């Protein structure tokens, strides 16, 4: 059926983001030399504006082009998450980007378009839109990872990322093609119906495996996680933050859409596999993080471990599971952005990522130390912070039939406290080698305060957020 203009209103958020992206790109070219700082301001204001728009039309459920593009509360929630994380990343990285040199003009543009890619992924109704969103996000991230191209590190990260991403998208495509071949459908909910009705053919198993691999790469589940520590360490810190936050969140939105949306029919097949993958991810993520001495690499492994915790929500494929994932991703975003902004700003000021150079940070700048500590402990799941509630939701879904996974998850999250506290130890106990206080620029300070307040607020009173997410998770299942 032809595309009717009336339903255009449903995708206003996407259109606005695309417009913002292109506008920033153009501005970058037109604006005179010094005007470049304005770009960041424009981007942040734009993103915040769009978030407002997204929040305002929260309830508008509907699907475009007969199911090709689903705009339901579920997708709306994810879009708000992406916009918030994008805004925070841009806000936190203003000074960082200045010394990226001349490429700074296109940085904000591509970043916004990456956010657009995520949004498309979140509300994609069929395989093609899903794939296009995924590729838009990946390509823009590849480019962002390689900035500044004069420095060998990011470029090395870039080459690794593009080749591995290309290979994984090929694998993902192969899986999609097999499923398309079996069911003759590419719309997610039709595929669900076809899979539920038809019997389980070996090709379907193969297809599911390839999907697991392709998407596992994106959310850095263990056997497919090898790329993320190198890319996280190589890439510039704000981009690493956005990668760890945006790309992972979008991939989880996709994973839910595909596994719980399209393949519930063969749930009992992939449930145990996902459980085992999640357990292995948690164990490897936490254990390898222990000996790390570079803060970005440590945060990379801890974010792999967080991916493991989030995968726990997938195992039972119930509404509670989806709710657990969305809740945990939302609070994970604030914790990760907080931690990476501190790392980025510290790198900006002192030029080092080594944990031992963080000595005496609490005396040099109490806010940075506090934010780093709070974010890390929230990831570890220490009570007053958001992580605890998130883990409670997640593990309560699987306790009845996958008890061993609950054990692995909780014990490993307590082991993770070990390497988080080692960083806290360095920050709080040691004397700084140069005691000059680190002055925070206002945008970075704002980001840090926002993340700190958000983590504490969600931890202490998770009530309101869990209501919102309930409605979002519920809308996922009605179609």
């Amino acid at each position, binding site marked *: 059926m032809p595309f009717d203009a009336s339903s255009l209103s449903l995708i206003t958020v996407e259109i606005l983001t695309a417009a913002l992206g292109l506008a920033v790109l153009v501005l970058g070219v037109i604006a005179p030399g010094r005007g470049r700082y304005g770009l960041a301001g424009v981007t942040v204001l734009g993103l915040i504006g769009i978030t407002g728009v997204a929040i305002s039309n929260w309830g508008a459920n509907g699907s475009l082009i007969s199911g090709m593009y689903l705009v339901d509360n579920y997708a709306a929630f994810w879009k708000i998450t992406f916009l918030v994380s994008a805004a925070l990343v841009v806000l936190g990285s203003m000074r960082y980007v200045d010394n990226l040199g001349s490429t700074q003009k296109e940085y904000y543009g591509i970043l916004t378009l990456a956010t657009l890619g995520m949004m498309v992924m979140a509300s994609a109704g069929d395989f093609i839109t899903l794939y296009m969103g995924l590729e838009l996000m990946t390509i823009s991230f590849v480019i962002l990872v390689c900035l500044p191209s004069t420095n060998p590190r990011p470029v090395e990260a870039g080459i690794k990322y593009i080749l591995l991403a290309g290979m994984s998208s090929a694998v993902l495509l192969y899986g999609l093609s097999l499923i398309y071949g079996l069911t003759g459908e590419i719309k997610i909910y039709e595929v669900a119906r076809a899979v539920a009705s038809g019997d389980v053919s070996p090709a379907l198993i193969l297809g599911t495996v390839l999907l697991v691999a392709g998407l596992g790469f994106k959310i850095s589940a263990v056997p497919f996680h090898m790329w993320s520590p190198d890319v996280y360490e190589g890439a510039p810190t704000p981009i690493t933050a956005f990668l760890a936050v945006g790309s992972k969140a979008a991939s989880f939105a996709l994973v839910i859409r595909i596994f719980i949306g399209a393949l519930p029919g063969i749930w009992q097949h992939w449930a145990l596999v996902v459980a085992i993958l999640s357990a292995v991810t948690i164990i490897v993520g936490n254990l390898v993080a222990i000996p790390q001495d570079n803060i970005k690499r440590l945060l990379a492994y801890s974010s792999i471990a967080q991916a493991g915790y989030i995968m726990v929500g997938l195992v039972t494929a119930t509404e509670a599971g989806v709710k657990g994932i969305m809740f945990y991703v939302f609070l994970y975003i604030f914790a990760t952005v907080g931690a990476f902004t501190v790392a980025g700003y510290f790198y900006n000021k002192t030029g080092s990522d080594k944990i031992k150079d963080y000595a005496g940070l609490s005396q040099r700048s109490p806010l940075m130390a506090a934010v780093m500590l709070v974010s890390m*402990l929230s990831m570890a799941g*220490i*009570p*007053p912070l958001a992580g*605890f*509630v998130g883990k*409670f*939701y997640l*593990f*309560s879904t699987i*306790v*009845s039939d996958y*008890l061993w996974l*609950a*054990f692995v998850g*909780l*014990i490993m*999250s*307590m*082991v993770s*406290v*070990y390497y988080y*506290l*080692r960083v*806290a*130890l360095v920050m*709080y*106990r040691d004397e700084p080698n140069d005691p000059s206080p680190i002055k925070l620029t206002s945008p970075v300070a704002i980001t840090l305060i926002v993340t700190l307040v958000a983590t504490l607020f969600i931890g202490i*009173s*998770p*009530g309101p957020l*869990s*209501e919102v997410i*309930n409605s979002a998770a519920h809308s996922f299942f009605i179609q």
Partner: protein
Amino acid sequence: MSFPVLPVILLAPVAAAVVLLFIPKEEHRLIKSVAALGTFVSLFLTLVIYFNYNQDVGGLQFVTQRDWIKDLGVTLFFAVDGISLPMVLLTNLIGFCAIFASWNISNRPREFFILLLILITGVMGTFIAHDLFIFLLFYEVVVIPIYIMVVIWGSSKRVTKEYAGMKLTIYLLIGSGFLLVGVIALFVKSVGVLGAPDMSFSALAEAGAQLSNFDQIWLFALMLFGFGSLISMWPFHSWSPDGYAGAPTAVSMIHAGVLKKIGGYGLIKIAVVMLPLGAQFWAPWMAVLGIAGVAYAAFGALAQKDLKYVVGYSSVSHMGYVIIAVACLDVIGLNGAVANMFAHGIMAALFFSMIGFLYEKTHTRWMPDMGGLGRQTPKLAAGFMLAALASLGLPGLVTFVPEFTIFVGIFSKYGGLAVIGIAGIIITALYALRAGAHTLFGPPRPEYDHLEDIKGPELVPLVVLGFVLVVGGVLPSLLFDMINSGVVPLHAEISNVLQLGGNL
């Protein structure tokens, strides 16, 4: 009382901590007095409610309840009953004295007192909360301040303070990890049984009783592991001696005095009440582990040369009594357990504060090179002696009657084990007196002549805790009537489930 007294008690220290944020770093005296004021307010209010808690009605009083997380059924449920009120009183007493015990902290006092106040609030929260989620919230919030305090202000003697702090933290967290799994499983099963999710103790107890025998057993095992590691039950005790030796005085006071009791309190109020059949199944094991703890740690304490290690091991030994008392699952046993927790708390706090002062003055805790301080610092010696005598359970001090009650309780149920337990009092006498005699009596050493005795604010722990020690010993009914009013209804709840044998 309409006035929400419990939240005020809970938040007074936090308010003081917030005020401290704005006081400049150099004002040492002002910082300490604000901190003292904070704890004094909550101590005073606790005493007020302690004396007008009417015991014949019993049950939960001074209740403040507000919905918190609807879909998990979590309500902010603060209340106090016969068992939790003494514990709250204990927390405030020790908290108040801990402030004064660390009166001459010199480096970064502001951060120290902020963390200390947060620690006190966290510990108090666990005793007030009657909602499992809030209990867990407070149960784990305490761990990080302790780590930071041990790492910055600790002292590394046999093991570095980083090792001690890390071991303390990770050990307790892994214990609480197991507990968390147990709690989540219980919660999920209770939703099945009750219909609506409800996290309050009473609802979970009602649901827990209806669980199958097998479920109750493995759930109780998890909780036993979690609470056991906190109350330093035998195989999981290795964190407590190192932890206390590494920690600064105030932290070891609060940790030995109160934090361990959360384990015991949790064991009674949560594990035993909610999973009576599990408790019945594991009771013999707990008894054996408890007694192993008593004998093992008593001998361990005997072999120590460092004062803090002696008290560390002795607290493990005393907690062994509590565990076996809980294992009796009868009124007298439970009464004895709660009372012993209170008594040991007071004793351990006094002992640690005295050792703290001793360490500040002589800069050593190594018994062989101490001696004859009785003459040079008489008040400190009196306090030290009082604590040593209390630790060996001298009648007339608060520790005797609870221990006697425990002996009566366990003697009837576990005869053989009880004899070993009671033999423990001999070993306890040996190491307590050895600690006391070696430091206080004997020829005075010239190098300690310049020491001036404890005076002014440093006297507060001795006076306050000493007073409670003696009054509690001479008039035990003050403590026991309150605890009895808490234990009797609790025991009635358990026994009718045990009689029914639970529905398999």
